[in-house]
Structures are given as structure tokens and as C-alpha cells.
């Protein structure tokens, strides 16, 4: 069994964060999203992993993951170039996959329960493919699977007006090599992409059984800022916490807090977990970090109240405002305008920024 992580796409819904990097490297609980996929594959015993790259961020992703040895896996890069659809991305991996089965995992997805159960289910039968499903409240907005009593897929429909079930396809699939022959026979859809649902439908038509696995725990596609915050909250709510850094006497730290070895919580700062604080970050006196906050590396928080927020890193936060439900990009400065005349906000904003003042 091999693994394939799809890491293309423009990340347009995550602008301006993705103006300077790929969406797969946006951190959730201080870990880039793509690392969750690598770890899930490794945990399932898959160590040969292909990472499919688009145009955007291909150097950054390679620089981050390297040859995979830091994660105990062996990574081969596959350059898809143009984003011609999930089935095209899978198809570019044919030489890498060979005659093996493989897991295809969207690199901006996070799944709480991992993929081992899904793989066990797939390997227990003679399936042409396996798909992960989750019950959703708005099935008309998703690709939907119709399944029989034994869990075999009988039909896939894209964003149906009259959904046969509320079981949506999420971004994790298991394929036998039969998928490649199907991909060869499909044509681009109306949007010019090779659709993976078309290829799976063809595998079904070819007489293969398609396994389904309903994911009971949470799953997140981290395509939008609010999804990053939600994923951050979901990951942090299971945080055990470890105070490996410095907590000065007089600091008030409670709840699960992950404090990196070179991070510091100074006296008279308050941290209420679950919170993650990364390397070389200092939380200075008078600051308050509330639950579900992740502060990336090399940041300074000086007297600011921050809650349910992701600060990606290398930022200086010293304003007197309360920051909630926010995603702050790398290298940002949030200072105070107090005492500066004329009174008012002073902003240097990049394209596609979104502020509620």
C-alpha cells in the first residue's frame, strides 16, 4: 500500500495567508496541515508516499517535508502542474504507484480518527476502491454516495438536488490500480477537470465493489480561515499539554498548555488552555491567552488579550484590543495606536485582507 497526498490548488479562499505560501503549510495547533496527512499515513503503516505538487508552493512544500526521513517515510514528489482535477492528480501517480493499492489523501484535510479503520475495511474485501464518508446536514452541497445495507457504494452523485443519502465524500480514498484504467477513459467535466467521482463511478460500472467507511469523529477541510480556526479548536481540545518551556513565578497557567522548550510565559501573564505556544515565543506580563489559541514560533505577545486565534509566527502583538476568532499571518505587527494623533486605526493591509474593527 502506498500513499498519495495532494498538495496543489491555489488556496484562494485562504488569502491573504496564501499569498506567501501554500495552504497545506498553514499551521493548525502549530503544525502544518499537511503533516497530519503524513502522520496518518505513517500510523497506518504506509511509508512510501507521493506528494503531488501544483504550481503554487512547490518549493516550500519540498523544503518543509524534504525526503520524508524526518517523519520516518520516503517521499517522492510528483509535479502535476496545471490543476486538472483530482483524477488527473491521481493519474500522474501511476508510475509511482505501480501495481500497489494506494490511499489518496487531500493535503488540506484533517481527520481525527486517522485512516487505519478505513484501510482495514478496504483490505478485508476485494474492492476496486474505498471512500471515506461523513454525514452532513447539507448533502446538496457535496458529492454524495448511495450505499447498500452492507456498506457497498451503489452510486455517486455530485451536489444532487434530491440527495439519496446525507453521506458526503470527504477527501480520503483508497484505490486499487483499477482506478488508472478508469481515469484513462473519463473526459474533463464542464469545469475542465477530471473528476474523481467520474472515475470511481466507472470502476463501479466495471463491476468492482466500492467500499465505504463512515467517519464518525470530526473531519475538517481547512480551505477557509474559519475552517483553520475550527480545526485548531478541534485539535487543541484533545491537547494533553506539556510545559517544556519557562513559566516564570507569578505567571498563571492552567488547563492543557503546550509550551515549547524555548518559549516563555512571564510573570503576570495568564494562559488558560488549551493553548499551544511554539519555540522562541514570549508571553509578556499583562497578556491573556484564552482557550483554543495557537501562537507560532518567534512571537511576542505583550499585554494583549487573545482567544480562539491562530497566530502563525514571527509576529509582535502588543495592542490593547482583545483579539478573538482571528488568523494572523506570519511577520505581522499589531501595535497600539494609543497616544498617536490624529486618533484612529493605522493599517497596512495586503490584498484580500479581512478585518472587523
Amino acid at each position: 500500500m502506498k500513499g498519495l497526498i495532494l498538495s496543489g490548488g491555489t488556496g484562494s479562499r485562504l488569502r491573504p495567508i496564501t499569498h506567501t505560501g501554500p495552504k497545506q503549510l498553514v499551521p493548525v495547533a502549530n503544525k502544518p496541515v499537511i503533516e497530519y496527512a503524513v502522520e496518518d499515513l505513517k500510523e497506518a503503516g504506509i511509508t512510501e508516499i507521493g506528494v503531488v505538487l501544483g504550481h503554487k508552493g512547490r518549493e516550500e512544500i519540498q523544503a518543509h517535508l524534504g525526503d520524508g526521513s524526518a517523519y520516518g517515510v520516503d517521499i517522492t514528489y510528483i509535479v502535476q502542474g496545471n490543476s486538472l482535477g483530482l483524477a488527473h492528480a491521481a493519474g500522474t501517480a501511476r508510475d509511482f504507484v505501480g501495481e500497489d493499492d494506494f490511499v489518496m489523501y487531500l493535503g488540506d484535510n484533517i481527520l481525527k480518527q486517522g485512516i487505519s479503520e478505513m484501510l482495514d475495511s478496504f483490505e478485508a474485501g476485494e474492492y476496486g476502491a474505498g471512500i471515506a464518508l461523513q454525514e452532513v446536514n447539507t448533502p446538496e452541497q457535496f458529492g454524495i454516495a448511495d450505499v447498500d445495507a452492507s456498506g457497498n457504494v451503489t452510486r455517486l452523485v455530485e451536489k444532487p438536488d434530491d440527495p439519496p443519502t446525507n453521506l458526503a465524500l470527504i477527501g480520503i480514498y483508497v484505490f486499487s490500480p483499477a482506478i488508472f484504467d478508469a481515469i484513462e477513459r473519463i473526459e474533463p467535466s464542464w469545469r475542465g477537470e477530471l473528476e474523481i467521482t467520474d472515475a470511481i463511478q466507472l470502476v463501479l460500472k466495471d463491476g468492482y465493489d466500492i467500499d465505504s467507511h463512515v467517519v464518525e469523529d470530526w473531519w475538517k477541510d481547512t480551505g477557509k480561515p474559519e475552517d483553520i480556526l475550527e480545526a485548531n479548536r478541534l485539535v487543541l481540545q484533545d491537547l494533553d499539554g506539556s510545559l517544556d518551556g519557562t513559566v516564570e513565578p507569578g505567571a498563571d497557567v492552567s488547563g492543557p498548555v503546550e509550551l515549547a522548550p524555548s518559549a516563555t510565559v512571564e510573570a503576570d501573564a495568564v494562559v488558560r488552555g488549551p493553548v499551544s505556544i511554539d519555540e522562541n515565543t514570549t508571553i509578556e506580563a499583562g497578556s491573556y491567552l484564552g482557550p483554543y489559541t495557537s501562537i507560532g514560533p518567534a512571537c511576542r505577545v505583550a499585554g494583549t488579550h487573545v482567544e480562539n486565534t491562530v497566530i502563525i509566527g514571527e509576529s509582535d502583538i502588543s495592542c490593547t484590543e482583545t483579539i478573538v476568532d482571528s488568523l494572523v499571518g506570519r511577520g505581522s505587527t499589531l501595535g497600539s495606536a494609543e497616544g498617536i494623533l490624529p486618533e484612529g486605526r493605522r493599517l497596512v493591509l495586503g490584498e484580500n485582507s479581512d478585518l472587523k474593527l
Partner: protein
Amino acid sequence: MRIITHTCPNCGTVISANELEANRVMKCPRIDCGEVLRFSDLSHSDREFFLENVEQYSI
């Protein structure tokens, strides 16, 4: 749809034909590889098929 790729003989990175055709001559996109790759590294039939159906491989 036929998907055409080429594998870098030096590092094993797989490159799709649209990427090779767009650049014609390029360094392998794997960081630290530097192998020179060409659209002409593809077989004659692959090149011919790609060029005859180039609109399929464009966004």
C-alpha cells in the same frame, strides 16, 4: 484521458507532460536535483498525442 508523465532519471521525481511542454527545457523541479529535463524526453507517440490534444491539458 491519457495522462502522460516523465520520471527524472536522477531523483525519481515525476513530472507531468503539461509541465514539460510549458517549459520545453527545464531543471528538475525537485530541490537540489538540477537534472535537465526536456519535453523531447517523452516518447514520440506521447509528444504527438499531447500536442494533438493540448487543449485537454490546459486549465
